[in-house]
C-alpha cells in the first residue's frame, strides 16, 4: 500500500512510500466501496482510540497532498490528503480548574482505554468511560468480552472529575460531554465539506474505525448528508481497504510553465507543446513499470493531471487536465479557476497574476482482484434483540434493545433507541434515528 493510494510492486524499494498506509487504506477502501455502489462524493470518517481522521472524495477522486507533513517533517511524497484531529474514544476529559470549562483531549488514554480498565493505570476519565456510564458500551462485552471494564470505578471518577465541578449529575455530565465531543467531530466533518464550497446533501458519509459506529449518529445529527453508511466490517475497514487498491503507478515531473492572464491561442499552443512532451515522457515511465509486471499498454487506464497555481504563489492545487493540445490548456485553466474558487473563496481568485503549472502528472492503473461485497437476500424487517439494557439518551435512562450483529439479516430495520453489538464495535442508534441493513451488509443510518 503506497501513500498515494495505490499498491505498488514489492520490487519498489522505498519504504517511505508506505507511510500512514493504515488510515490511507481506509480511504482507499471507501473509494472502492463508493465505486461499487455508484457513489461519487464521500466524506470518509474514521475514529480510533486517539484520533478522528477525515478525507474528502469528490467526483470519485481523493485529494493528493504533494508535500505532506509527518511528525513535523515536510515530505516530498504525494500522499492521500487526510486530516487528523486529536479526538478519539480514548481522549481525556478534564475540567479546567480556573475557568471551570471542559476540555477534551488532545492527549488520550489510547490503548489503555480509561479509568474503567484499572490494569491500564489511567487516572483521568476518557470518552470511553463516559460511554460506559451512559450504558452505551457493554462492560462485559468490550472487544467481545476479552477486556473486562469496571463500570463502578468509571462512575465514581466521572462524578468526581467531571460531573461535580460542572454542577451536573453523572449521566447528565457524561451525556453532555459526549455530545460536545460529537459536535466537535460533526463540525470538523462539515467544515471539510463547506470549506471546499460544497454542500452536505451532495455527500455520503462513510463511517468506520473501531469507534466510528459508536459516535456516528452523534456526529451526523442534523446534517443533511445524502446517506450515512456504516459497513458491518467498520472496525477492520482499513485492512479491508488495503486489499481494495488498484495496482497503480503515479509519476510527477516538476515543470515551470508560466501562462499570462488572458493568454492567446498561440501562447496556449506553446504551453500545450511543453505539457504534452512532459506527459509523453511520464507515460513511458508508467508503461515501463507496468511492463515489468507483464501488463501491456492497452490494459492501463491512464489519467493526465497538472498541479497549478497563480503565478508567485507557494501553494498549488491538483486538477485533472482538460486534455492535450491548446484547447486542453484552456479547459485546464477553467478547471483550475473552478477548483480554486471552491477550495478558497471566489474573492480569492487572482487570474490577473497569470498561472504557473508546477508539475505534470500521469497516473496509470490496472484493476486487480478485489474483495467482493457480500450479497445476501433481504429478510424480515423485524429482528429479535438478544437482551435489553438501560441506556441514557438525552434526559434519562431508557430500557434499550441490544442486538447481536452476527444474527441480523439483510433487510432488517432497527428503530432507535437500539444498540447493535459486534465483537469489535458497538453501533449506537439513538431515539428518533433508525438504521437499515442492506444486502451488502452495510447499515444505512437515517
Amino acid at each position, binding site marked *: 500500500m503506497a501513500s498515494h493510494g495505490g499498491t505498488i510492486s514489492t520490487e519498489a524499494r522505498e519504504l517511505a512510500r508506505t507511510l500512514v498506509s493504515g488510515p490511507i487504506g481506509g480511504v482507499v477502501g471507501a473509494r472502492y466501496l463508493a465505486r461499487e455502489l455508484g457513489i461519487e462524493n464521500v466524506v470518509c470518517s474514521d475514529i480510533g482510540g486517539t484520533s478522528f481522521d477525515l478525507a474528502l472524495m469528490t467526483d470519485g477522486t481523493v485529494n493528493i497532498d504533494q508535500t505532506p507533513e509527518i511528525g513535523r517533517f*515536510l515530505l516530498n511524497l504525494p500522499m492521500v490528503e487526510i486530516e487528523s484531529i486529536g479526538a478519539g474514544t480514548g481522549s481525556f476529559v*478534564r*475540567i*479546567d*480548574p*480556573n*475557568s*471551570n*470549562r*471542559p*476540555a477534551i483531549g488532545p*492527549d488520550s488514554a489510547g490503548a489503555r482505554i480509561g479509568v474503567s480498565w484499572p490494569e491500564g493505570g489511567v487516572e*483521568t476519565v476518557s470518552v470511553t468511560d463516559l460511554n460506559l456510564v451512559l450504558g452505551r458500551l457493554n462492560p462485559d462485552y468490550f472487544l467481545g468480552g476479552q477486556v473486562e471494564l469496571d463500570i463502578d470505578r468509571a462512575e465514581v471518577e466521572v462524578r*468526581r*472529575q467531571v460531573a*461535580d*465541578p*460542572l*454542577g*451536573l449529575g453523572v449521566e447528565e455530565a457524561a451525556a*453532555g*460531554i459526549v*455530545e*460536545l465531543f460529537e*459536535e*466537535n467531530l460533526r*463540525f*470538523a466533518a462539515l*467544515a471539510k465539506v*463547506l*470549506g471546499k464550497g460544497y454542500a452536505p446533501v451532495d455527500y455520503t458519509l462513510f463511517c468506520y474505525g473501531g469507534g466510528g459506529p459508536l459516535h456516528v449518529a452523534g456526529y451526523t445529527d442534523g446534517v443533511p448528508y445524502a446517506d450515512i453508511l456504516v459497513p458491518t466490517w467498520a472496525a477492520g475497514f482499513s485492512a479491508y481497504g488495503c486489499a481494495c487498491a488498484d495496482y497503480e503507478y503515479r509519476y510527477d515531473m516538476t515543470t515551470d510553465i508560466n501562462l499570462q492572464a488572458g493568454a492567446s491561442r498561440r501562447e496556449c499552443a506553446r504551453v500545450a507543446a511543453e505539457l504534452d512532451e512532459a506527459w509523453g515522457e511520464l507515460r513511458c515511465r508508467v508503461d515501463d513499470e507496468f511492463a515489468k509486471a507483464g501488463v501491456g499498454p492497452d490494459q492501463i487506464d491512464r489519467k493526465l493531471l497538472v498541479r497549478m497555481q*497563480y*503565478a*508567485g*504563489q*507557494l*501553494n498549488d492545487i491538483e486538477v485533472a487536465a482538460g486534455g492535450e493540445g491548446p484547447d486542453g490548456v484552456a479547459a485546464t485553466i477553467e478547471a483550475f479557476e473552478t477548483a480554486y474558487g471552491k*477550495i*478558497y*473563496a471566489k*474573492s*480569492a481568485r*487572482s487570474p490577473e*497574476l497569470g498561472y504557473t503549472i508546477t508539475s505534470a502528472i500521469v497516473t496509470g492503473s490496472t484493476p486487480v482482484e478485489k474483495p467482493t461485497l457480500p450479497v445476501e437476500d433481504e429478510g424480515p424487517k423485524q429482528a429479535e434483540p438478544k437482551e435489553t439494557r438501560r441506556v441514557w439518551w438525552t434526559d434519562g435512562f431508557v430500557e434499550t434493545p441490544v442486538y447481536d450483529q452476527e444474527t441480523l439479516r439483510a433487510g432488517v430495520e432497527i428503530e432507535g433507541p437500539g444498540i447493535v453489538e459486534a465483537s469489535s464495535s458497538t453501533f449506537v442508534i439513538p431515539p428518533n434515528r433508525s438504521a437499515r441493513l442492506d444486502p451488502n451488509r452495510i447499515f444505512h443510518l437515517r
Partner: protein
Amino acid sequence: MPDAMTAPVVTASLHERLLDSEELFLRTGAYGGLTGSLEMKDSDPILYEKIFSRLRGGLVTARETAVNISASPIVKELGELCFAFYTPEGDSVALSTGIIVHVHTMSDAIKYMIRQGYEENPGIRPGDIFCNNDAMVGDVHNADVQTIVPIFHEGELIGWAGGVTHEIEIGARTPGSVPLGPISRFEDGIDIPARKVGANDELFRDHVLAAAKGTRTPRYWMLDERTRVAGCHMVRSTVERIVADIGAGEFRRFCCEVIEDGRRSFKSRVREMLIPGTYRAPSFSEFTLAEEEMLPAHARKDTMMHAPVELRVAADATLELDYEGASSWGYHSANCTPSAMQGALWVLLTQTLICNDKINDGAYFGLRTNFPPGSWANHQNPQASTGLAWHYLIPSYTGVLKSISRGLQARGFIEEVLSPYALSANTFQGGGIDHYGQQASATNFAVSCVGGGGRIFSDGLDHAAAVWNPQGDMGDYEMWEIVEPFLFLGAKVKPNTAGPGRRRGGSGWEAVRYAWKTPFFETQNLGNGPVFIQAGLWGGYPGATGYRHNVRETNMSEIVAETGPYPTFDGDPENSEMERLVDGRRDFDQRTLTLPEKMEEGDLYLSVYRGGAGLGDPLERELEDVQADLDGGYVLPRLAHTIYGAVTRDGNVDVVASAGQREKLRAQRSRGSQPVSEWMRSERERILAHADGCGEFIEPVQRMYAESLRLSSKWARSFRSFWGLPEDFDFPVETPTVDISRQLLGDRLGLAEEVVRAKEPISPEPATRTGSTQVTEETLGEIADGTISGKELRAIQSGFKDAERFHTYLRLLQRRVPWKDRILLPFGEHLFIVQKLDGSRIVKCDCGHEFCDFRENWKLHAHIRVRNTVEEFREIYPAKLHGDPRWNELREYYCPNTWTLLEVEAVPPGYPIVHDFVPDLEAFYSDWLGSEIPEPRP
C-alpha cells in the same frame, strides 16, 4: 441577566453602545456588567462550550484554509497570520492560532472606527471590507495589515471578523517589513489608517491598484489581502451558521459571558500561579544612527532605550504593568503605541500564564497598564515612525518574562520558569535586483530561531526559540534562496552566544550568505551590539550581543574557480574563518544596526543569531554539561575556563583540576568585589560629577537618564533619592523630543493613565482541584535537579496545576536547607524569605548567611563586582559578542559568605540597583492561601 442583553439593540448607535459598554465595565468591574453568576454557562455548560468550540473551530479552519492563498513565505510557511471574532463594540470573543499579537490591536482599530463615527460616514454595511495598518489607530507597525469585515444578522451588526498578515515588504523608506530607515511616519510605507476598501464582498478597484503601487512586491501584497478577505468571509459564514442555529439573542449573551469568563479565568490564573507583590526588571536597547551620513542632522544620533518595567500583582489578583519612567520617543523607527504594547503583552502572557485556546479580550479586562504619554512606549506623536517597533518592544518585554518567572519560582511552579529570551536578531533584510533579474525586497525570518532562556531543569532551547513569532521554524533554506539572491554557504552553532549560567541560555547560530546573481541588493544589519538587553535570573548572564561581518569586493570568484576552501561559518570572532579564507573590503565590527548598503554578486554577509540568557551561578554548572558544550561547539575552551572554571586537556574536562580552578575563581570573587555600600559611595560621586558638566557617561546614556527624569517626576524622585542626589539634579543634555511632547501633550506629558476600577473580593483557594496532575515532593525534586524524564515533565507542563504545589515545594526546600528557620517564600536559586524566632522575616541564603528584612533590597547587603572594561567582558564573552562598557556594565552580586553569584544586572552606568521583587506576604498568606503567616519553629 436582564433581557437587555438578549434583546436587539438596533435603536442605539454603535458609538453609544461602545460608550455604554465601557461605562458599565468601569462601574461594575465586570465585562457587560456581569457581576454575578454567568447564567448561560452555569445553566447549560455544555451548550456554552459547544458554541465556543464551533466559533473557535471556524477561526482555526479559516486560517488553515486561507493560508494557502498567500505567496509570501512568512505567511505561508511561518504562519504570520491570524483571525479573530469581535463583538459589535470591538472586544475579541475568540481567536485562531498564529500571530495573536493582533487580537487586541484589531480591537483598537474597530473601536477607532466606531469612535470616529464610521457608522455614519463612510457607513458600516453588510459586505463592507475595512483595512487598517496604522499603529496610532491600532497596530504594531505598518507591515501588519488588518482586514476587518462587519457581520450582520437581519440588519443588525452582530460582530466583526478580523484577519491580519505580516507583509514581507511594506514600501517604506528602506526595503522590507521592519524598515530601520524611517525617521518619521511619512517614511513608514503603505499607510491605511482604517479605511473602507471594499463593498459587496469585493475590494474596491482603486484600493487594489493604489496599494499595489505602494510596495516593492505588489504580488505578495495582493495575495495576502485576498488571504485575509477569504478568511474573514469564512469566519463570517461560521458566525452566521451559529446565529441561525441558536438565535441572535442567545449569541449576544454568549459573547458577553465568554469575555467576562475570560476575565475571571485570567485573574484566577494569576492567583493560581504568582505571588502578589512588586516585580522590577528594567531592560535596555540601543538605536545607533550617529554614523548614518545620509540622515538629517536631527536624526543622526545614538539613542539608548530605557524600559523601567514594573509588574505588580495586586491583592485582588489584578496584573498591573507600569512603564513609568520610560525614556522618550525618537527620530527613528522603534517607537511604539499602546496598541503595540498591549498586543505584545498579550503574546507574552499567552506563552506563560494563559497558554490555552479559550483566551479572548477578557484577559485584557483583567489587566491594568501604564505606558506614559510621550515615552517611546506611547509616543502620541502623529509624526513619529513605528516601522521597527519590535526593536524596542522585544527587549523591553524580557523584563515582564523575568518578573513572571520570579513569581512562578516563588510559587513552586519551577517547570514554567524561563530566563529572558534572545533578541530576534540579526534581521537580514533588503531590496534590489534579485537572481531572476526582478526588482525584489525581502525580510528573512530566521529571526524566529534564536536562543530561548535557561530553565531550572535544563538549558534554554537552542536556536529554535520564537517568543515573538508563531512558531520556532525559519522555513527551508531552499525557500529563502528562492526569495533572496543570497545562497546559504553554511549555518552553524555560534559559540558563546548563549548567556552563561548553571543552566545556560539557548544558543544562537550563524549563517554565511553569499550574494548571487545580483547586480545590487541593498542589505541592512539589525540587532543589538553595544547593549545587552537583559541579564539572566539568579546569577545567569545575558546572552551575547552581536557583530557584523560583511565582505565586499571579495575574491570568492577566484576561490570558486580554484575550488579552494570557502567559509561556511565565522566561528570565534577572535579567530574568524571569513577573515582567514576570504579577502575583500571588510566591515567587521559591532555596528550591528545600519541602513541598507549595496551588496553584489560575490559579496559575503554574516548573520549572527542571538542566544538566550542563563540561569543560576555558572560555577555550579555540571562539568559534564560543560564537556557537552565543548563537544557541541557551544563554548570556546578558553571561555569554559574563565566562565565555568573548566580545565581542559585535548578537549576533555579534567575534573580534579577544574575543582581547583573553581576554588580559585571563588577566591577571585572575594578579592575582586566590595560591599555594595562602599561601591555606592564612589558611584554616587561619578553621577554627581555630571551636574558640574564633568561627568563621564556617554551622551546617549546621559540623554536616556535626562528623558526619564524629565518625563516622570515619580521616576526622578526615586532616582535622586536612591543616590542621595540634590532635588534639582539633572544631566546637562538636551532632550528635544521631550520638548516636542510637552508642546503636544501639555499636562498629559508622562502622566500615568489612572483608571479606577472596582476592586474585587477574593476568596481563599480551594484545597484540592480535580483534573490536575499531582506533583509529589520527589518529582518536584527531580525537576529542580533536572533529572526528570522529558515525557513526565511535559505532562506536568501541559496539565492543570496542582493546588498543593506551593506547600510541596516548601517541604522540599525546607528538607534541603541546612538550617531550621521556617521558609515563608522561595526567593531565587539560593535565597529564601524565612521566619525568625524573634518574629522578623528576613532574606536568608541557603548557606546560612542572613541579609536583611525581606522588604529591603538584599543586594544592598551583598558584595558587588562591576565589569565595566573590555578585558573584564572578555572573561565571559569573545570579542565582538559583548556589550560596550561605555553603554552598559555587568554587575555581579555575591553572597559574602560562600561567594556564590546570586544575581547579575546588565544596566547602564549610574543605574540604581534594581530591587527585583518585593512580595506582599500578608496578602499572599491571608487573602490567597486563607491562612496566617506560619509561626516561627519552636
